[in-house]
């Protein structure tokens, strides 16, 4: 029951701190803009308007979902260590795993709510613009669940960092670096390697696996496999075919488990 007590309190704090409002507004604003802007070219391309919207929202989510995940989690342990509430909580009859799971449940709920609101807006707007008859909602659902997996991975990374350092300010700096590396620098690095390799061994065998190893890229690959949108996704899906859907799923759902495991290991070592 301690897990739910902690989740309950964290949700309350997230609501009071405006984290819920901030996440929802961020997701909503971007999805509305992308849905409306993405609606323009569908006439000439002749593809499902929802797929076009999903494809642009995927590109956005790769940046936004990890950011929200890290922002929700970086303070979780370090903040409590600094305030002294972690030491106090640990004198109560509950385990460190319960604390971690409770916090994760709360933050996961906030994330799921924000993503759900954003995608519901997309679906509503698209149906309103183009009529609901010819829309396929499967990509939207896929985007929803993979976003949660992506977000969970970064929640776990945030907790790990938060457990390893003692000050929330240091934790916030580190998570920003993690975000930059995972969603920006990693891809730039791969691109650089591709260019210098010029279609050799690296491009054919190593690159696809390196690409799918990053949860953000696995997320992109899963949500843009459709050949009808290759035009829009600059040929990224071609690289995805080597690792296949299983590799992508393994990366996307393996990372949250790995990150949460690391967080638990790190939290066990914290002497508050």
């Amino acid at each position, binding site marked *: 029951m301690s897990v739910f007590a902690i989740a309950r309190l964290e949700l309350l*704090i997230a609501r*009071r701190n405006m984290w819920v409002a901030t996440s929802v507004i961020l997701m909503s604003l971007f999805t509305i803009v992308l849905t409306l802007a993405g609606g323009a070219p569908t006439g000439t391309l002749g593809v499902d308007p929802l797929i076009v919207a999903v494809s642009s929202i995927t590109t956005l989510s790769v940046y936004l979902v990890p950011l929200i995940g890290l922002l929700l989690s970086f303070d979780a342990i370090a903040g409590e260590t600094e*305030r*002294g509430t972690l*030491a106090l909580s*640990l004198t109560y009859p509950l385990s460190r795993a319960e604390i971690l799971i409770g916090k994760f449940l709360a933050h996961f709920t906030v994330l799921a709510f924000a993503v759900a609101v954003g995608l519901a807006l997309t679906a509503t707007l698209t149906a309103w613009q183009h009529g609901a008859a010819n829309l396929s909602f499967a990509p939207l659902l896929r985007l929803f669940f993979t976003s949660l997996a992506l977000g969970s991975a970064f929640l776990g990374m945030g907790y790990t960092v938060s457990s390893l350092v003692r000050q929330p300010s240091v934790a916030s700096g580190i998570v920003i670096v993690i975000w930059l590396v995972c969603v920006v620098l990693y891809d730039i690095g791969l691109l650089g390697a591709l260019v210098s390799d010029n279609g050799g061994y690296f491009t054919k065998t190593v690159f696809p696996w390196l690409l799918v190893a990053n949860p953000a890229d696995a997320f992109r690959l899963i949500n843009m496999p459709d050949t009808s949108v290759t035009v829009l996704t600059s040929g990224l899906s071609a690289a995805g075919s080597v690792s296949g859907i299983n590799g992508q799923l393994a990366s996307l759902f393996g990372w949250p488990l790995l990150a949460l495991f690391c967080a638990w290991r790190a939290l066990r070592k914290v002497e508050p």
Partner: protein
Amino acid sequence: MTTLAVENVSKNYGTLETVSNVSLSIEAGERVALLGHNGAGKTTLLRMILGLTPVVSGTIKVLGSNPGSRHSRASIGFLPESVAFHGALTGREQLRHFARLKSVPVHVADDLLDRVGLSNAADRKIRTYSKGMRQRIGLAQALLGQPKLALLDEPTSGLDPISRHEFYDIVEELAQSGTAVLLSSHALTELETRTDRIAIMSQGKLVADNSLVRLRQNAGLPIRVNVTTTAENVDVVAERLGGERINGCSILLTCQQDEKISKLSQITAFGEIIKDVDVTPGTLEELYRHYSVTESEGK
């Protein structure tokens, strides 16, 4: 069963020994004050009892269980020296949360808010609370679920004199209901009448552990007798009693416990010319200094 049994416990950080071969036991219903300078090892000892810091050498048992075990944690109420509850929560929300963690019905939390005098502020955000009010929230959570052992680290810091008085009333009630109380404090005067036993730590060692009366006897601190007489007789009286004149009409004498009564009868023998007599035993401050200093000199 002994509520808290600490036996030969030591703890060192690198070469710095913060707790050195400490043994201490507390029975149900006992109130023990733990005194010591900053860095004397009090907080480290409390943290080991709580299971926050591992016990490397020696043993600690809380009601027969190891520190940090679920059973021992469920039996302990702890008030940390400094804790900052989340400012975005109200006092009631924070306390109900702790009640849930301890599997105590939430109405108990509401009753405790009344008990510590926070019922009017219970639904305000903690960030608007004064230091004393935050301390009361801390105390209330330590009282949740009738703990068998209450560990209170500097419980009265930030409290005004009336709140301190109320605090010690609560401690007394706790002890009467069978809780063993271990509290650390710097405010020595208030402990004199409010605790059963005093343990003094100095440089990681337990240098004294006894009732106040026994500590006084063992220390052999002089008792001060302040005699007030009339201005014309003060020199005669001072000469006969062998005391020291401190102003126009009073004399300060010092004596040991066993001489006290004979000294007093000597004074009353003067009859009318004595206006007043004050007898002050060695204060806790003096005792504390005596035990801390003797130990460090003996080293």
